[in-house]
């Protein structure tokens, strides 16, 4: 069996075993969850180390393929290339960290850990799947756990509203995607119909899709996936949902599950419908400005820490969309890099804000202040994470955002300019203000305590270390991503590699006379 099966199978198996454990065995249940996610993280890191960048552009590695419903062309097919490798490792890490920080859950632990394992296993399975049906199927496993977790263990007055909002929005997005994927599947000739991504990609490499159908399918996938990633103006579910969700749910959702839509766009929508992709990228570029500027400005006004982080995470998604809109190798490589970096970052910030909420019993920044004296470790990590959120070099977000801006500059100079402004100025303002309001100040706190030992510090340290490692050595990921992105970009730009746009100076330079040109009298 492929190690990928274990990566998402272990959490799901743990969920199944927990059903059988009596609810009084709290320690056993938590231990099982920790073991499953830790093992899946170790296996994911192992896959990352064994991954061969040289093969990445040509084939999927660690593949496993089984029949599921042959008459419909459904199969179980997993595999990795550079695009989903980083996502799987990041997802497994976040899942482990989310399980670690759940120790304060004090009621209905059994249900909690079952649902958490379902969420984690589901999304890891979605990233590992190379079959459209499994891809969708695994993603949807997270929907019900999200609803119940926000409702039962969530916080805040608005939690019921937020639970419904996030559920309904996500299912609208998911159902649009489902219809789009079905329509895509039905574009294949009868008899050869399959949901296998590799086969579909091969088919559309050789055949162009019926333009009429593509005109329907592409926007369905774009907006379906877009809703799942909180594309402006369909983003309102995200900050509200994360604000009310329990820490682990917010970490997994903002960090990992939200990347599903971006992954789907890169893996499916762009390469299969190049003509439509080239039409829609202009609209996507405008909408992503909505994410970066509008949500950034909204984040500036927030006084609730979770809402601030939630809005800033929506704003970061704008960069990911901008990279996709650039349709260039460097831009999409940057997008994948941002997906991994932001996953770690969002999970880290939500974990820390969850710690603060548990200690101070509030998330209102007006009531915080002066916390750094009592929480040196948590405070340091949080300040570093917030600086990473402003795109400070040395953290993994920086190379991603830089690559996206390099990629988009030639096509959308105006948008890129505004995006840089949004990233540097707006993000800087709200992050620095938050640092000031939470950590500095005169207020004295007595009741609260810092993470006492290595074990409690582990989840935060793990996520921060990965952010720093990828920030200092981005090529650990980008080498693999780039070779896998090249075929996607080649297909998305209609098989012909667009020559790089010539620098402006050449247009004014005297033209060389071609030998075939007839001289004008």
């Amino acid at each position, binding site marked *: 069996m492929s190690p990928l099966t274990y990566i998402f199978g272990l959490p799901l198996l743990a969920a199944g075993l927990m059903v059988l454990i009596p609810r009084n065995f709290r320690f056993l249940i938590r231990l099982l969850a920790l073991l499953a996610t830790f093992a899946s993280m170790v296996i994911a890191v192992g896959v990352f180390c064994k991954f061969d960048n040289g093969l990445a552009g040509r084939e999927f590695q660690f593949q496993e393929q089984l029949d599921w419903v042959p*008459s*419909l062309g459904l199969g179980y097919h997993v595999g990795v290339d550079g695009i989903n490798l980083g996502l799987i490792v990041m997802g497994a890490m976040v899942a482990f960290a989310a399980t670690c920080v759940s120790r304060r859950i004090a009621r209905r632990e059994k*249900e909690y850990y079952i649902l958490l394992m379902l969420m984690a296993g589901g999304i890891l399975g979605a990233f590992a799947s190379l079959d459209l049906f499994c891809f969708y199927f695994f993603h949807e496993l997270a929907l019900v756990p999200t*609803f119940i977790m926000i409702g039962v263990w969530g916080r805040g007055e608005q939690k019921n509203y937020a639970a419904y909002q996030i*559920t309904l929005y996500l299912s609208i997005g998911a159902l649009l995607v489902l*219809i789009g994927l079905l329509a895509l599947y*039905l574009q294949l000739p009868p008899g050869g119909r399959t949901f296998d991504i590799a086969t579909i990609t091969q088919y559309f490499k050789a055949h162009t899709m019926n333009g009429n*159908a593509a005109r329907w399918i592409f926007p369905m996938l774009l907006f379906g996936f877009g809703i799942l990633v909180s594309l402006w103006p369909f983003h309102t579910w995200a900050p509200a949902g994360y604000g009310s969700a329990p820490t682990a749910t917010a970490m997994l959702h903002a960090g990992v599950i939200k990347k599903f839509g971006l992954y789907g766009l890169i893996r499916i929508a762009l390469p299969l419908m190049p003509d439509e992709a080239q039409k829609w990228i202009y609209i996507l570029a405008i909408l992503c400005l909505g994410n970066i500027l509008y949500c950034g400005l909204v984040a500036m006004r927030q006084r609730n820490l979770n809402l601030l982080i939630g809005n800033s995470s929506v704003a970061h998604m704008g960069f990911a969309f901008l990279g996709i809109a650039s349709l260039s190798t460097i831009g999409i490589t940057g997008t994948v890099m941002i997906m991994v970096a932001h996953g770690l970052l969002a999970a880290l910030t939500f974990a820390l804000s969850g710690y603060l909420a548990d200690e101070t019993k509030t998330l209102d920044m007006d009531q915080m202040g002066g916390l750094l004296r009592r929480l040196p470790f948590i405070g340091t990590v949080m300040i570093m994470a917030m600086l990473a959120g402003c795109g400070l070099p040395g953290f993994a977000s920086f190379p991603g955002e830089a690559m996206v801006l390099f990629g988009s500059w030639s096509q959308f100079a105006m948008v890129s300019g505004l995006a840089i402004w949004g990233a540097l100025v707006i993000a800087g303002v709200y992050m620095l203000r938050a640092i000031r309001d939470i950590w500095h100040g005169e207020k004295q706190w007595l009741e609260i305590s810092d993470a006492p030992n290595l074990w409690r510090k582990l989840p935060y340290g793990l996520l921060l270390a990965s952010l720093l490692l990828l920030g200092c050595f981005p090529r650990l990921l980008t080498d693999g991503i780039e070779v896998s992105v090249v075929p996607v970009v080649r297909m998305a730009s209609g098989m012909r590699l667009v020559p790089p746009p010539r620098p402006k100076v050449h247009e004014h330079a005297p033209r060389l006379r071609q030998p075939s040109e007839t001289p004008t009298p």
Partner: protein
Amino acid sequence: MNLSLIVPEMSVVGLALAILLIDLWTPAPSKPRLGWLAVGGLALILCATFAQPIAGDPVSGFSGLFVCDGLGIFFKRLFVGAAILVLLLGIESAEGFPMGIAEFYALVLLALAGMMFCAGVNDFMLLFVAVELLTITFYVLVSFQRARADCLEAGVKYLIMGALSTAFLVFGMALLFAASNTTNFSVLSRASATLAHDKLFWLGLALVLVGLSFKIAAFPMQMWAPDVYQGAPTPVTAYLAFASKAAGFVLLLRVLFVAAPYVARQWETLLMVAAGITILYGNLCAIPQRNLKRLLGYSSIAHAGYMLLGIAALSRDGASAIVYYLAGYLFTLGAAFVVICLAGRESGDISALAGLNKRSPVLAAAMATAMVSLAGIPPLAGFAGKFLLLRAVVEHAATNPAYYGLAFIALAGIVISLYYYFGIIRAVYWGDEAADPTPIPISPAMKFSLAVCLLGMFYLGLFPNVAVVAAEEAVQALSF
């Protein structure tokens, strides 16, 4: 005459008569135990139906009145399974039927016989007899708790609407006979190409469809469902919600795709409109409901709409999707009604489920699973069914883009339905505190039914292959 064809049906009738007879010599306190006799008999019949392969050749008998093919066998299995569940629910709530529990069992069996005949109908005469056997039995079953006013009210409503729809059905059949001079489906299908432009035939078929839409609770005869579901005794509601609807669908499939495939092909728009309105009506009306059984009544209208998508798709894929969907629907509703029977016994209000998670975590999980499956979310049977139905609709959209619109209506319906299904999950897990915090005892029979329903939901959702192949073989009898 080929009596061997109707052995399962006749043994069900015989079982019903035997129970009525044994009842005469049974002392009152042990009468509820007669239900076990019925369950045992049905279990044997269920096993016997598995001896007949679905892929076998169709055999018809009684001068072409009755046919025994894959579709019939598949549906008979579903019906017998549903009847076993209803009988178990009936045994569980036997004290709710102070008089005539044995008659209750016998009526359930007689209704089952009616449905099993529906599954093999090949002639409008037999169709009418089977439908009446089913409907008249249900008139009695719906109003079985004579002491309760709302139960009687439900019975009267069902009676009036049922009589009205029967009138449509008979009138339609008379017009069809006038147009074609035959009532046999096989003869009609041979003449279908010439009849396809006969306006009298069209009118007759349209009226028959109206009559059948009563059975499946679809537009235009859907308005009885919420009242009757709410008032009827819980086991009867379960029977109505599943088995009676399935019988309606097998009749619809046979009438449209055996008797009149040419006309059906011209009725794309009509079928689309019926499906779309049914989906929207059921889902929109379900939003404000506070009574669980009433809510399931509206949701059953919505589900009739989803299944009509498969008919509107006018393809073999659509028909097999309906068959598959019904199999999943049986297990899903089974689990939901077991929970309602145990937890919401008195009022049936959603508040009766409040704090169910504390009273019985097993029932809470089962209810949540059933709602998730009804909402059509992986990895449960409901998702696979909706996936197949949507696939059939989107497939047909290649020839008629209006079907994309229908798919979007279905999508809107599914999103709306999430709201009220998740409302039930919310009541179960973090609604108000329970008024009565005592744990709910679950009898072994209910534990068994719950386990079977849950396993069925997961099996059909995770390993759909066997059921999909069976459904595809079952619809070989239809022509498109």
